Structures are given as C-alpha cells and as structure tokens.
C-alpha cells in the first residue's frame, strides 16, 4: 500500500492528481489523506484513489506504519514521522509559484533533508513514477544527522557550562 498525505493545512492537488494518474498503472492500493477542503471540489475526479478527507492521529499512524512507502509534501511533521517509524518517504515540495504555499520554504526543507537516508525528493511531480517503481527504497532512520548531532552538542555544552 502507498500512503499519500498532504498535511492538515492546505490542499495539494498537483500531488494527488499525479498519483491518481499513476494509480491506473500501479498494481498497488493508494490511500490518500487529502484534507476536507479538497474533497468537496476535486474528489470526484480522483476515482483511482482510496480518499480520506481527514484522519485521527491513530488512523494516521496505522496507515503510515503499514504503508510500503509514503508520498507527501515536504512537511516537517511527515519527515519526523518517517524517521520515528523508519519508513521510506518520498517528498514533493510545495511551490510558491504554483500557489501551493505562502513561500518556498518547502524547497528549503527538501534541500536540507535530501541527503538523509530514506528521504527521497521528487523535485518535480514527473519524478514520482520512477521513485514509486523502485522496489526497495531505503527507509528513514532515527540516526542523528550531522546537523542534529551539532545541535545536541551545542545544547550539552550550554547545559554543562
């Protein structure tokens, strides 16, 4: 199963449209959390997906942990969840120019995390097909990144001073 999530704040039709298009050629169920605002307007065109307007935290956790791979916007919560539960995560950053967010901070987030094990960046929606077709995508880990280790070091030095 593929689990797609766009977070709770904004719709992300570019991601969901792309997945809906790919679903016909993929022999794998796609469950998509799309947010309430979107289901009213566009849901009728997303016939190839198992749509979930909203999910409780428990439902979200279960789907996340049971999925083969998670596809999402470049949200911090999603990235931390992938690390916590050790899952492969594909992120498509929202673009300001396409009206998908107030600014391009998701591009900055994607650049920051692209070197992490198990976080796979689709810079364009057209990159999604190839990433989803990979049979053994690396899983995210709870290992400390160099940046994380540096933060811990700074805090520790301050605490012990």
């Amino acid at each position, binding site marked *: 199963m593929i689990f797609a999530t766009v977070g709770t704040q904004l719709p992300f039709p570019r991601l969901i449209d792309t997945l809906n298009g790919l679903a016909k050629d993929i022999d794998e169920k796609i469950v998509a959390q799309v947010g309430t605002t979107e289901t009213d307007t566009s849901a009728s065109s997303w016939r190839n997906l198992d749509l979930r307007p909203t999910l409780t935290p428990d439902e979200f956790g279960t789907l996340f942990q049971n999925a083969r791979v998670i596809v999402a916007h470049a949200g*911090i919560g999603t990235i*931390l969840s992938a690390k916590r539960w050790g899952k492969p995560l594909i992120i498509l950053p929202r673009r300001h120019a396409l009206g998908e967010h107030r600014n391009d901070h998701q591009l900055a987030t994607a650049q920051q995390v692209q070197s992490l094990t198990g976080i796979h960046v689709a810079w364009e929606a057209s990159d999604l097909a190839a990433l989803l077709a990979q049979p053994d995508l690396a899983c995210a880990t709870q290992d400390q990144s160099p940046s994380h280790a*540096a*933060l*811990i070091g700074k805090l520790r030095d301050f605490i012990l001073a």
Partner: protein
Amino acid sequence: MPSKTSSKKIIAIASGGGHWQQLMLMRPAFAGQQVLFLTTLAGLPEQFDATPARIIPDCNRDEKRQILRCANALLRLMIRERPDVVISTGALPGVMALALGRLFGARTIWVDSVANAEEMSMSGKLAKRVAHLWMSQWDHVAQEAGAEYAGAVL
C-alpha cells in the same frame, strides 16, 4: 553518570504535538542530568518513556484565565524544583516557563520549532527576552532574527 552534586537539574517543557516530538529528539543533550519533563497532554510522556514528568494546563494568547492557571502551575513547580536550566521548543507555556525559571536563577534555552522555516515563531519572538540561549533550527532564520544556530533535529 556524574555524581548528584555535579549533575544539573533541568526542566524540559513543550506543548503536545510537534513541539514535544522535537524536545524528545533533544534528549541526548540531557544525558546524565536530572530532568523533569513538562507537557500539556496527558499520556504523552508515557508514549515516549519520558520520566519523571508532569502535566501542566495548556494556554494560548487568547485565553487570559488559562494563562493564569498555567502560570500558577509553573510558578509552583519552579519554587519547588529550582532548576539550573529550563529548555523549551514551544509554545506559550514554554516561554512562561523560561521567564519564571529565570526569575529563580535558571539559565534558559529556547530552540524554535524546525517547522518555522520562514521566521521565528510568535512564541519564539516572545522568548527572546527571557532566553539566555535563543536558537532557530534554520540558519537563515537565525541570521535574520539575531538568534543562534547550531543544527536541527531533522
């Protein structure tokens, strides 16, 4: 582990959700110290094996009575615990804990949530006045705000 006399007493506080999750990722920095965890959501500390822990009333800027209840709980904890260090990732209860802790002589740390990739959070801006160490988890945000940057929990 260092002896009791040399270990520091830390109060580590975060609201439920992303703030708490990030605070948990900073736990290696507290190794060997005496930590008391505070959060706003019952059940959360158990999920992360964070002990000892206390639940405090949540509050935000729009609810004056809740702010008083939260401040009262924090004040009593600070008087009883007298922490050496207070650290928070957010939100408003964390700012109040830093302010009250500082009154009682604690050194204070604010690490703004990594979700704030554009500018310091609202509570982060408030925390500037009460944090000895005031940090963003984004280099460009830190530079713009005059905060410190060392890394991020990502």
